């Protein structure tokens, strides 16, 4: 490409200024963006990692999924920083990563949701058959698990859970109603009804 204006015109000074100013502006914008983003990571990382763990039973994987969530959010940060519910959005990204992960796993040998007969078939409350919560959660479908984690571990409203998962409120209520009794049965007497 050739220059649009004859070189050595006085305008050249301005032109260098345009680029320098533009670059400096970009640097400032990036610094502000990174600072804002770091603050968000610091506020959100622990809750996200814990929810990821409840979803996948593995702290390493939970950390990976959380990190991937942040990568995706940083890549779209300019759009997200204004007017987006960051907390809800980060859960949505995380859950989608979990669902992807689950799909990949179910293509291979491990299918958490299809473990052999669990204590749900045993008399409720038999102590030695009681499961730890994460193991019980793992026997639910990943979608039901997501509803329980968001609704009961994170205390989001039914509406918020529906928005995060991109499903209707009645779907959330239905999954919750279906999954809670199963979880209750698996956890046995530890799990008080009221």
């Amino acid at each position, binding site marked *: 490409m050739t220059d*649009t204006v004859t070189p050595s015109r006085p305008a050249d000074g301005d032109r260098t200024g345009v680029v320098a100013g533009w670059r400096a502006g970009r640097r400032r914008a990036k610094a502000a963006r990174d600072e804002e983003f770091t603050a968000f990571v610091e506020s959100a990382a622990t809750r996200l990692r814990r929810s990821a763990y409840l979803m996948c039973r593995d702290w390493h994987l939970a950390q990976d999924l959380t990190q991937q969530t942040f990568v995706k959010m940083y890549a779209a940060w300019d759009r997200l920083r204004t007017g987006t519910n960051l907390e809800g959005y980060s859960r949505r990204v995380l859950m989608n990563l979990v669902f992807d992960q689950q799909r990949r796993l179910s293509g291979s040998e491990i299918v958490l949701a299809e473990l052999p007969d669990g204590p749900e078939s045993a008399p409720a409350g038999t102590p030695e058959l009681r499961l730890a919560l994460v193991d019980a959660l793992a026997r639910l479908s990943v979608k039901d698990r997501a509803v329980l984690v968001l609704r009961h571990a994170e205390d989001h409203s039914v509406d918020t859970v529906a928005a995060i998962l991109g499903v209707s409120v009645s779907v959330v209520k239905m999954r919750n109603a279906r999954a809670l009794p199963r979880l209750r049965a698996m956890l046995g007497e530890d799990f008080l009804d009221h």
Partner: protein
Amino acid sequence: MDTSLREHFDRAVRGDPGADSEAMAHAAIAQGGRVRRRRKQLAVAGVAAGVVMVLAVVAGVNHRSPAAVAPRMTLVAASDCSVKPVQNHATDVVILPGDADGHVTDQMLSRLRSDLTDDPRVAALSFENHEQAYQRFQRLWPNDPDFVASVNPNDLAEFFRLRLVDAATYTAFRTQYAARADVVSIEGRICKPSAPVGGIQ
């Protein structure tokens, strides 16, 4: 019920080994930044391969790689126009207003607008604001919603589109406007009369 369930959940995550959130943020910035750049690169490459791509020549942009060019500078020639900006005999022109830092003020715009309106060489003049630029941007990238979403309307420059009465006047016209302190860049294309004013999509 909820209390008991909450206790279960709280107990379940007690084994959290923790992680350095600052390190996580740094890693996400490094990796997410690469995603951002790749996305822009892909978008630019997509246009180069598919439609027609022309970068508005912000002064000094010549030695820049396309990936470093902000979306605000992406202009695509209309189908009835020369792909690349020409030095002479342009029929249609785009003028990007702004001072040396790229800032645009209302006074700057109104002065430039009135000068262009009064310029007898100009046959047709229109102004594209942030919102219109954004709509055009969305039309240009129908298959890359992520890229579109990564751009705010305010990232996209406002500019004037115009058509000259006589293409022979373009060389002098360009020289005159490019020298102004309130013009960042000016580029012209040779278009058929059927092309949109300004010669870009």
